[in-house]
Structure formats: C-alpha cells, structure tokens
C-alpha cells in the first residue's frame, strides 16, 4: 500500500521523527483555516505518485487567502492519473541543508538497502547517476537491523559526520518501518536540517507490502479508503482481480502475469494497444472471467476483448462454456477472440464457434484477429 505524504508522516511521527506542523484540507476553506493556524504554508497535493511538484501540485501560500486559492487550484487536479482528493498544508521550514535518506528492497542482492546522501532534494536520481559515491549504502542484517557502528559508518561515509548523533537516531527510527510495518520502500527527501540545527522530515514516502497486510490490518483500516485512483482499478480491486488500466482499446484477459504481459506485447505488435492488464490466475473459473469482462466493458474506450488462457490441467471446454455464459449474461456485443489451450482444446474451440465467438490458435494469431475485427 502506498501511503500519502501526510499518512507517511503520521507513521514517521509515531516513530519519533520530527515533522513540520501540518493539517489535511479537503476544501479550500479548510486550507484557509489551516494557514490561519499555522502561518505561511506549503499547500501540497496528496497523491500516491512522485513528481507532483513538477506537475504543479505544490504551491506556497503566505496568507489564508493564498492558501484557499492554492487549494482550489490543486484539489481535483489530475496528477499522473490520480485525481487529487485533498491537500496537506504544512508550515514552511527554515532550510539550512537538504539530506536524502531512504531504504528499499534491492532485488539483485535480495536484501534491504539503506541509503544516505548529503545531496538530498529533487535531483537525487541525477546524483545517483553522476556521483554514485556520494550516496552511502548499507545492507542491514534483516534479523537484527542495523547496528550502531554500521549506522555511524554510513553517516561518516556520506560526509555527514558532524550530524552523526541526530542522523543515526533518525535512521534507526525510520528503519522501524521495516520490522513494524513491513515497509518495502521509505524515503525522506529532503530530510531537512533547519537553521536551528533540528533534523525534520520535509517530505515522506512510505510503501508497505500488501502480502504482509494480514499483520497490519490497523494500517489498512486507517488509510486505505482515501486512495481513489482509476475507477476501473477501484472496481477491479473490489472484485479481487489483478487489474491495471492502460490507455489502448483492446481489453485483455489472461491467466498468469507473464502470459498476460506477453499478450499486451502481442496486441501492440499486431498494431493496436491494450486497454488493460488483467490476470485472472490459474484456474480461469467462469465467475472470475465474468467479473473481469464486466470491469473491462465498463471502459467506453474498449472496442474488443482478447482472452488468452493457457490451461495445463484446466479443461478448455469448461473455460469455453464459462466465457459463452459470461458473454450472454453481460449482453456483450463487442468483438471477442478467445485463445484457449489445454485439455479438450478442440471441444473448447467448437463450443466457442457455435456461440459466435472467434477462437484463436495461439496468442499471436488471436491478437491479430482481435485487432483486425476492431478495425473493420
């Protein structure tokens, strides 16, 4: 689960990390009230995606009126596919230095990696490329976490030795997100050193592992309802489907993530683009197929649907009957091509044909068929 900035800051604050005073505002009036209480504020769009600053999602407001105006502009704005539901009004900081602090899962070493750099701020990715040595790294032992001397070494390696005391404390506090919240990425960028020498989280990003949600139902219950993204993705989530919206016109259903991704590639190779990624998993049950079709057909951009099911043990005739029934139940009129393989494949194809659904011999042929049908 990707937490919004204000949510991530609440979690960090619960670990003892200092955060600036801030208030959530769902309306411009609430933003004005927040500025009256806090003073000059940064009005920040709350979206679970990076790059909001460059997209105009952060505005400085010196007065309540300015805060009201800024909130009116930002709330409802679209940032990378997310409609901004609310803003976070946060007191301005007296910035003396900006540090980068974060951790993530390094797939190559199959371990957590902690990173610290004196060159924090917006350009950290460029820093990583041009001067990788200026980012100090540590792979903490996952059973016991980082030891004191390892943290000191990290801080000195980053050239931040004068701040060794407060920084090792903040890193230890941030690291708590791993054992306590199953975080897979967390980032404080910038970690601000103020003119008065305090270390404060200027921004915060926190992503927790959905596979570990069973251990953190409190977090889910507290934060999950605010995140509203793409309407089809929201609907698919309610139906427990693995679904991602894309911007093409061919609806795609496949079993298995790899096959499904491969099918998107085939649709593009055939000259069109997929409207979505939808993995219905192993068995391809009739009910799941119907659920998936229903979500895909909600999208008015969809001109045709391609179902690509590779069954090993799955019986193709059963899948075919399920597809036929789902199509009938939904009154679906759009072109539909179904590629089935597995046990009783010929019988499956016969059932499809008898019911006016075009079978495909393999994924590539099926992709070409559906693209041709939507063009005619």
């Amino acid at each position, binding site marked *: 689960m990707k937490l919004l900035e204000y949510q991530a800051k609440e979690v960090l604050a619960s670990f003892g990390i200092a955060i600036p005073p801030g208030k959530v505002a769902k309306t411009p009036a609430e933003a004005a009230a927040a500025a009256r209480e806090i003073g000059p504020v940064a009005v920040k769009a709350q979206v679970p995606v990076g790059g909001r600053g460059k997209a105009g999602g952060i505005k400085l407001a010196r007065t309540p009126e300015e805060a009201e105006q800024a909130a009116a502009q930002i709330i409802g704005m679209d940032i990378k596919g997310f409609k901004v539901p609310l803003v976070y009004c946060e007191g301005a900081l007296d910035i003396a230095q900006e540090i980068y602090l974060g951790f993530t899962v390094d797939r190559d070493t199959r371990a957590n990696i902690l990173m610290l750099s004196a060159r924090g701020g917006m350009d950290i990715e460029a820093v990583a490329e041009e001067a990788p040595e200026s980012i100090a790294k540590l792979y903490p032992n996952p059973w016991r976490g980082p030891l004191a001397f390892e943290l000191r070494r990290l801080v000195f390696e980053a050239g931040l030795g004068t701040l060794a005391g407060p920084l090792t404390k903040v890193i230890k506090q941030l690291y708590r997100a791993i054992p306590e919240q199953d975080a897979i990425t967390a980032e404080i*960028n910038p970690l601000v050193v103020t003119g008065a020498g305090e270390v404060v989280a200027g921004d915060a990003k926190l992503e927790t592992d959905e596979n570990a949600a069973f251990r953190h139902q409190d977090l889910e219950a507290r934060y999950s309802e605010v995140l509203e993204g793409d309407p089809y993705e929201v609907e698919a989530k309610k139906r427990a489907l693995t679904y991602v919206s894309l911007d093409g016109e061919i609806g795609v259903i*496949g079993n*298995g993530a790899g096959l499904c991704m491969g099918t998107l590639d085939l649709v593009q190779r055939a000259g069109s683009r997929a409207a979505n990624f939808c993995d219905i998993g192993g068995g391809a049950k009739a009910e799941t197929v119907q659920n998936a079709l229903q979500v895909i057909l909600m999208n008015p951009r969809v001109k045709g649907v391609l179902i690509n099911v590779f069954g090993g043990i799955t019986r193709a005739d059963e899948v075919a009957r399920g597809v036929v029934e789902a199509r009938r139940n939904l009154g679906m009129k759009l072109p539909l091509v179904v590629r089935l393989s597995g046990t009783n494949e010929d019988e499956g194809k016969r059932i499809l044909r008898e019911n006016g659904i075009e079978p495909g011999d393999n994924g590539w042929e099926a992709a070409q068929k559906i693209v041709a049908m939507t063009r005619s």
Partner: protein
Amino acid sequence: MSILLDAESKVIVQGITGREGGFHAERMREMGTRLVGGVSPGKGGGTAVGVPVFDTVAEAVIATGATATGIFVPPPFAPDAIMEAADAGIELIVCITEGIAIQDMIRVKDYLKGFPDARLLGPNCPGLLTPGAGKIGIIPAQIATPGSVGLVSRSGTLTYEAMAVLSRAGRGQSTVVGIGGDPVLGLSFSDVVGLFESDPQTTHLVLIGEIGGSDEERAAELLAGSRLKTVAFISGRTAPEGKRMGHAGAIVSGNKGTAKSKVEAFERVGVPVAETTDQIVELLG
C-alpha cells in the same frame, strides 16, 4: 542427465494434507516422481497420497532419506517451512506458495546463507520438471517431452506456453525450471544457466524473462561464449512504467530492469530474442 531433479531424487511435500498440496503431490507421483513422504505438523503417523506423513521435516528426512521438498503451505507459514527444510538438511527446496511477505523472504534468504548446500527455488513459482523423471510443483506433465532443451523462466503460464511450443515442434526438454516472479527469490537465472551449462544432456536453452530486476542482464553476461545455443524471450515489452513514488528504486536499479535493457543485454552477447513464443523454435535452429 538433467539438472536439480532426476529419477533418484527422493521428494517430500510440506503441506501434503492441504488441498493444493495433496492434489499436486498426487500429480507428482503420477508422473513418476519418487515421492517418499509428506509433512503436516500434528498429522504425523498418518498417510496421505499413499505415503507416510510426518510432523516435522527432520523426522521425514531421517525416516525416508528425502533430499528434496515441495512446499505448498499458506504464505504466513511458508517462510518457516523453507527454513525448517534447510535446517533438516534438504538440498532442493521448491516453494510454490504465492503471496509471501517480502521482508519474510529477505530474512529467509539471510538464514539460508548458513546452509550453502541448500538450494531454494521460488517462491511464487511453478516448480521444476524433468521429463520422464519427475517434478516438484505444478507444471503440467502432459505438455512436456524428454529432450535436450533446457528451459528457465520467471513466469508460470508462459513457461507452459513455451513447453507446448517446443514439444509440438519435436524439441524435448532436459529440465524445465520456473524461478518465480517475486522480487526476492531463491535461484536466479544466472544460477540456473550455470547448472544447465554443466549438464551434458542440455544442448539448447530457452530463457523467458520479464521486466524488473536485473537477473536477466546478469544471465546474459554469463551466456557470452556459452556452449548452449540460447534463445531469450522478454515479456512486458509494452508494459507502462510503474507509477513510482520515490527515487529509491531508481537509485538502486538505474536503467536496468526495462525490457529494452534486457533485450539489448541478450543481443549484445549474440543471444536472439524472440518476439512471440512461436518464434522461439525458429530461432533455436
């Protein structure tokens, strides 16, 4: 010959009294796998799928001499099951379970450093299959044929797809290995490529990768100058970039992990990259 699993391997199933474990243990035995027992805490002393059930892996190893295990237990318990198998001296641990928490797997990987002889395949993988000898996991046996093509893949259904294409074209497989799709995995592409490289039966190799991580890139480096005639396939070429929040991922991976980076890595070492699964056979020569 084959890699990792042959007709001599003695296999147990952890979670054998569960629905999935029982069902697939039966399929494993049907195709000739030497299934010698199962583990299900609290159900020791009974039998399932015609083999004895034990309370612990250690007991199963002592009683049966098992050397390999297939794990079919739910995600909250699977990490412990993997470590239990390693501790009991099992050398090949195949974890089929999908949905294990990443931090749990990171701790498991660290634990396994204490067991250099134990190899973990998965989790969230279809397992492995040596045609004519046996399988651990859920790869459908009826689409496999014995032969000399090694197959290693990150995806389940795409693996089956590739097997079917190969078998239809008369290209049998030496061993089929699904390494799994999770971010934190046991055996990597490089590990499996290395095993195929030293298997005399394997003359050809099909590697099916996907976007994310840089295991494919590293395997490509290993394939430079290999004796294996190899074809790669990368799925997710047209997948959009994920909606990223922070910079941490980019700092770690840089430009690696994209389909483009992977395709280029293979082409650089002379390994052709198929665009459809059917093309795999043509390119294999």
